[in-house]
């Protein structure tokens, strides 16, 4: 049965929303002339749009549906997950994002192939390892996002999940393959603004219906004070900080957005702006979750609390807008991942390894075709959920930890430790990835790790990063020194000292790639 009455106002708002999204796709198509336009939006994204896109790609439907439901269920205290999560952005601000923007390429494997390029094949092996793992992990993860989209369609509109999955996947494939990163980022901006406006406007309405914040407080203080207090312990918050700190700072879909911004200053401002967006949305969702518990204490499915609020508190237009924001949140996560996995196949595998002499037009179309293919494969997996058995569930649960375990140490040490070499970088990637999977299998499937250990080590990314670090140090000291060519884009000319600017400009990079300034390896 459908929760939403498909009245003319609701249908009108949703239709306008989808027209805007597809219009943005067409605008992206018209402004895309090169692969750099397609994959990093011509590198002209400013701080406001940049901050919004970081927010939208991080906050999926989980924020408006799952997190909202958790506040409804557990109370206000769950809000302390946000400072844990923001530790990731602080790590990124200090150690990763501005440095990656200064490097200024297109994908994370671009970084891996350049910094860890002393593999006898100019970084091809390192690139292939990084790109392959990204493509596999993200393609499977997309199937879970599409499945979630189908289930939300079913809950709201009462239609078969397969139809919802098909609509979500085809819409995302359409505007992303047409408009590339520019379309993806601009739709993220629309989504973040819609999400923020909808939840902020809902607060006075919800407080009006409940009699004000004092009434809410008095009610819960009388029988369950912890519901409106701070229920997470410091250890739990520290656990979130460790897990998210590694995963967010090294997430390839966030780094691709970092590449799209104008310069390092813009990157730092955008991180500040995403924290503002997340504070507004996180606080609003927490307050609304608590007030919804007071208004509707007997909901059997807490995940539907935000939808019930949309229908009963916000009124037809704002309610439809919030439901559109839920769909939009799924789409923005799907398009963010799609463009990164597509780039892994088209830019890293096809453009760099298979056909390095491809023209710009060939590269753009390779990216479009890759997005279509890597968008339809997850749709197939979602429609046939038993196809890969437990592998889908494993990757869905672990994808963020896998990326953190695999890329955090190679990124941070590659950017800040001159001695780090190719043997160390590749070993760190492989060992970090393997440790995350092994830890998950040992704890969740075989249960061989004592509970006292898992109470402290709350996420597989933590042992993954530790072992990755050990592998990096061992590999580096067992191998030779890195070549000057692999260091120059990150540390500049060694003769000019630490303060010198690295060669991050496209022209310098192009020269370096052509070998005109890169022949002086140790």
């Amino acid at each position: 049965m459908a929760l939403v009455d498909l009245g003319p106002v609701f249908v009108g708002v949703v239709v306008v929303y989808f027209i805007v999204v597809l219009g943005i796709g067409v605008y992206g198509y018209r402004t895309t002339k090169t692969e750099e336009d397609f994959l990093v939006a011509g590198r002209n994204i400013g701080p406001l749009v940049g901050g919004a896109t970081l927010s939208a790609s991080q906050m999926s439907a989980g924020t408006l549906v799952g997190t909202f439901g958790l506040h409804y269920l557990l109370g206000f205290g769950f809000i302390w997950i946000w400072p844990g999560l923001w530790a990731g952005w602080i790590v990124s601000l200090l150690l990763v994002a501005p440095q990656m923007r200064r490097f200024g390429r297109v994908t994370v494997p671009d970084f891996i192939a350049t910094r860890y390029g002393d593999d006898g094949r100019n970084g091809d092996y390192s690139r292939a390892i990084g790109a392959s793992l990204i493509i596999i992990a993200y393609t499977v993860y997309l199937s879970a996002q599409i499945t979630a989209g189908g289930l939300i369609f079913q809950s709201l509109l009462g239609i078969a999940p397969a139809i919802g999955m098909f609509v979500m996947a085809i819409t995302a494939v359409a505007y992303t393959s047409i408009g590339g990163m520019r379309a993806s980022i601009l739709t993220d901006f629309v989504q973040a603004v819609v999400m923020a406006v909808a939840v902020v406007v809902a607060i006075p309405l919800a407080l009006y219906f409940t009699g004000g914040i004092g009434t809410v407080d008095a009610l819960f203080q009388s029988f369950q004070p912890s519901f409106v207090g701070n229920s997470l312990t410091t250890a739990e918050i520290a656990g979130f900080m460790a897990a998210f700190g590694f995963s967010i700072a090294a997430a390839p879909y966030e780094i691709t957005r970092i590449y799209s911004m104008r310069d390092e200053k813009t990157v730092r401002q955008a991180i500040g702006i995403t924290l503002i967006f997340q504070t507004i949305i996180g606080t609003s969702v927490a307050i609304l979750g608590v007030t919804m518990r007071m208004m509707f204490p007997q909901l059997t499915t807490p995940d539907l609390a935000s939808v019930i609020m949309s229908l009963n508190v916000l009124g037809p237009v704002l309610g439809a807008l919030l439901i559109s924001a839920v769909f939009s949140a799924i789409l923005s996560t799907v398009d963010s991942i799609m463009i990164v996995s597509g780039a892994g196949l088209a830019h890293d595998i096809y453009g760099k390894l298979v056909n390095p002499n491809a023209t710009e037009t060939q590269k753009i179309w390779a990216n479009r075709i890759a997005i279509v293919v890597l968008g339809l494969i997850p749709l197939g997996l979602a429609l046939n959920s038993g196809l890969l058995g437990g592998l889908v569930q494993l990757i869905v649960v672990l994808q963020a930890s896998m990326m953190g375990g695999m890329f955090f140490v190679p990124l941070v040490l590659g950017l800040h430790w001159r001695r780090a070499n190719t043997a160390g970088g590749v070993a760190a990637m492989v060992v970090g990835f393997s440790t995350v999977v092994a830890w998950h299998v040992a704890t969740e499937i075989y249960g061989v790790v004592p509970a006292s250990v898992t109470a402290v080590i709350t996420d597989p990314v933590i042992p993954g990063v530790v072992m990755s670090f050990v592998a990096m140090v061992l590999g580096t000291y067992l191998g030779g020194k890195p070549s000057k060519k692999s260091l120059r884009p990150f540390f500049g000319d060694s003769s000019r000292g630490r303060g010198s600017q690295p060669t991050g400009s496209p022209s310098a990079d192009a020269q370096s790639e052509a070998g005109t300034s890169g022949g002086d390896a140790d």
Partner: protein
Amino acid sequence: MSFSTSILTFLSVASVYIVFTFAWGWYKGRQEQDERETDQDAQHATTGGGDH
């Protein structure tokens, strides 16, 4: 802890993150600007004052 106090506590922590982020951005921006100016001065001195 009252609901209002919980909200204000969270917003205070959030504002620490936000202020730190912008302050760090401002500090690094100035540092990079100084480095650029130092590099330009050094380049200027090497080329003998350029077109003065």
